[in-house]
């Protein structure tokens, strides 16, 4: 929704009652507006300056519609007809681009969004406008995401990051899981990660290998410390209300920061480290087999069949 601000545009005409000035002010308002406006709304700002009634404003607008300088749109809700200084095709393009600028959308979702502003837009009309915009490069059809059959449209060209971030996340997650499994056999997690980096660096993804001892990745110890710090901060905040006697659900804690959810295994490892260091208690679920897969996934696991559903400060 993009109603215009009515403060500045009529300031110059404050004292004038000349009909031409009134019409100019009216057309200025329409030019500034991002969507067609109802006569009552336009009248609201003109009344103060020109003492214009809704009926008089509507009469002026109808006259301009007849002249072809203003276009009339079907009412939205119960506000009466709406008016704008641009035609229907223009308005359809504006809505489509506005919606797709915010996010890439499948056509059926876009159709719903358009209908909210322009209820009488037909399917054919919409398709023609989309094709026109695609032709001139103002819109882009995005490649399908793996496992999803829906085509999405966007004002931006496809970003490769959007297509491989999931893959990378899964790969990282799998490596983290594997590191926990190996840790149970005495292989330090850091060694598993170093091996993963080395293998990646030798792959075609990289150009010439980095010199020995120099890693393009951020210092993992500092990252871990930062994560632990963030976890403790959130835990302190959540346990302050003593709702469950100071106990916080690991699911709730994970939900407090996008990072905790994205770095799933790193979050689990950080909590296990905090417990091992004696800073927090982790509460183990006795019968994880009785839980659903999604319930287990929301908990913290050590990769050895133990699942923890609660955490509290030790003191």
């Amino acid at each position, binding site marked *: 929704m993009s109603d215009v601000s009515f403060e500045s545009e009529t300031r110059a005409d404050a004292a004038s009652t000349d009909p031409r000035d009134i019409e100019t002010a009216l057309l200025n308002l329409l030019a500034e507006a991002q969507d067609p406006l109802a006569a009552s709304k336009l009248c609201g700002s003109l009344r103060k300056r020109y003492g214009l009634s809704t009926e008089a404003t509507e009469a002026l607008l109808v006259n301009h519609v007849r002249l072809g300088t203003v276009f009339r749109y079907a009412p939205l809700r119960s506000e009466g007809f709406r008016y704008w200084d641009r035609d229907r095709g223009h308005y359809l393009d504006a809505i489509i681009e506005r919606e797709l600028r915010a996010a890439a959308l499948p056509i059926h979702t876009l159709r719903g969004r358009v209908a909210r502003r322009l209820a009488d837009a037909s399917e054919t009309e919409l398709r023609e406008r989309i094709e026109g915009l695609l032709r001139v490069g103002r819109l882009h059809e995005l490649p399908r995401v793996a496992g999803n059959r829906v085509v999405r449209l966007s004002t931006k060209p496809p970003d490769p990051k959007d297509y491989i971030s999931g893959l990378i996340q899964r790969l990282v997650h799998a490596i983290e899981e594997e590191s926990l499994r190996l840790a149970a056999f005495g292989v330090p997690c850091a060694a598993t990660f170093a091996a993963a980096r080395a293998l990646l660096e030798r792959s075609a993804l990289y150009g010439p290998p980095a010199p020995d001892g120099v890693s393009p990745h951020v210092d993992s110890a500092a990252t871990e410390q930062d994560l632990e710090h963030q976890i403790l901060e959130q835990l302190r905040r959540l346990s302050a209300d003593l709702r*469950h*006697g100071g106990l916080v659900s690991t699911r709730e804690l994970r939900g407090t920061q996008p990072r905790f959810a994205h770095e799933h295994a790193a979050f689990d490892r950080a909590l296990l480290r905090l417990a091992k260091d004696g800073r927090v208690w982790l*509460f*183990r679920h006795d*019968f994880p087999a*009785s839980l659903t897969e999604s319930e287990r996934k929301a908990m913290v696991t050590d990769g050895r069949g133990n699942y923890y559903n*609660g955490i509290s400060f030790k003191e």
Partner: protein
Amino acid sequence: MDIINPFAQSIVTDAWQAPQSDVPMIHAGVFELCCEVLEQVRRSGGSRSVLLHGLPGSGKTHLLARVRTNLNGVPNDMAATVPVPLPPNVLFIAVRLRSGARMLCRHLRRTLAADLFRPTRLGMSQLEQLLLYRLAQFLKDRKKAQKWWIDLRQPQKPRRWWLFGKTDEAGRAKQEIEAMIERLDEQAALGRNLSAILRHLALGRHRRNVRDWLHDGVLPDGVMRDLGLVAAPEDEDPEEQALDMVCAVSRLADSSTPLVLCFDQVEALQTSPDDVEGLYAFGRMVSSLRDKTRNTLLLSCVQTAFLDKLDEIIRGADMDRLAEKAGLLKPLSVEEAKRLIPVRLDSAPAVAKMRKGQSNKLWPLKPNRIAEFMDGNPACTPRQLISFCEDEFEKWRHGQAQPATSLEEFLTLQYTLEYGQALRSSHSHQTDETLAHGLPLVLALLGRGKQVVDTGHKYADLIFEADAGRLYISFCNQAGNPLTARLAKLREAVEQGRIANLVVVRDSRLAISQHAKKAQEHLDALTQREVTLLRPSAEGLAAIEAFRSLLSDAKAGDLAKRGEGIGPGAVEEWFKAHLPPSVADLADGLTPERRLIGREAIYDELLELVQQERIVRLDEAAERLHRDAETIAACVAGHLDQFGILQGPPLVIFEKVAGAESAA
């Protein structure tokens, strides 16, 4: 000297069980929270609720036992005397929530009735001490109440014409007490029946009937009349009646004596992972108790892992009340472990004697082994530590830990113990409760039907969705008019087509009296309409009781083998693999193709006769029941679980008492 392993006992099963040892430092914060909230209840005149949670084995029930011991003390052995009227510190009630959702309030009432008759530290029962105190409040000289109380319980001496004084004194005491009960009723709105019951208790009369009425609110018609009690209206919800009774007891207690209601094993209310009814009903009950009483402290215990389920199922407003305050029972710290072990060791006198003069406070255990264990178990619970110490103690005593029993052996032993206990304490007044909670567990396990909620059928205690459609089960274990009224309602519902596929359940130990002509007529009319009459045996009921008890323990984390919890799944699997024939018969009796339709009138007649006479000659029984001896002998042969026969001549019939053989 025989040395007992002081770590052998690692589970406190009941808040009434005296803890073997106690370290006040452990969970001190949560204990203080309970005491603080209790003080708030005393001061503010409003009820409060605390939710206690922790890992399985963290000591939730132990904490309740500590609260009880701290508030009520240990009962005095010199219990025969009546003390000067003093209020009990609290009325302590410990409820293990092994109940069906639709009998939850009645389960609470029954536990309340049983616990009210437990002794306080002064030796009297909680209820009697409270009643004596409340009556004494009406007198200037409180000792007078004590004297009357004693006098009215003295055996009556032969009356001598020249000693008018004593008789007049007793008569006056009786009149005064009756007047005081009236005033108490006016003050606390106790209601007609409870006032009458308290009057009998104060006058030292009908103690057994008083207990039974408090337990169920129902007594045989004649006894109800004799005691001046009126039957509850038929259309009144028995759950509401039970809740009202609990509230009335809380009003009797007033703020000087808070009512402490402890709810343990909340997890057992869930009959299956997707069952919501039990927990929902529990939330509603706690909420009602908190709002309808002014002097109640509600303490509820759950496993930490169960909190999400509670949050999800219990209505938001009810959950806010239930978890008004929360106490988290944290794992043991190293310091707490160091305190716990010596206290446990010293709880065995022989070990304590040997430990005197030892510089190692943990002797005979090795400190480095304990330290290693604590290092490897950062979230160690008291139960885990005690179990580890049990093994360490065995190693010291015998050079090796006790050989580990298999899960199969462990569960067989536990079941046998539970079954024996259930059989010995089995009584027909528990039948409804056993079946309401146990039957859904058994049928779900056998895949014979899933319990469904339908409040539209008032007289169906359980409803199952089975392959053959909906199955309605009605418990008809009442006597006299309540039985007749219930059967009449069922008959009406069946004849009007409101219920189909109905099974009427009556405990096989309860005869349908020859004099209950109307009840027999309704029952015969029902069986003619293909309604099944199922008569579960005492053995079958005891088996279900033992199963639900084991399963409840497992769900609440109270079933552990060497410190490690055994899940409900393992118990279910074991029970299914060892299904007792009596339970299989009971479950078969509910399936359409195996049902026996029709009433065996001769069985009820013979049972009634044998219960009256205890022991009767077969030919005499035949004569009194106007049957031939062969018919009687056939009936006895068909019900050997119920009747015993002594080979003659003459042949003698007697009633078999379930559990008598195992007790012997």
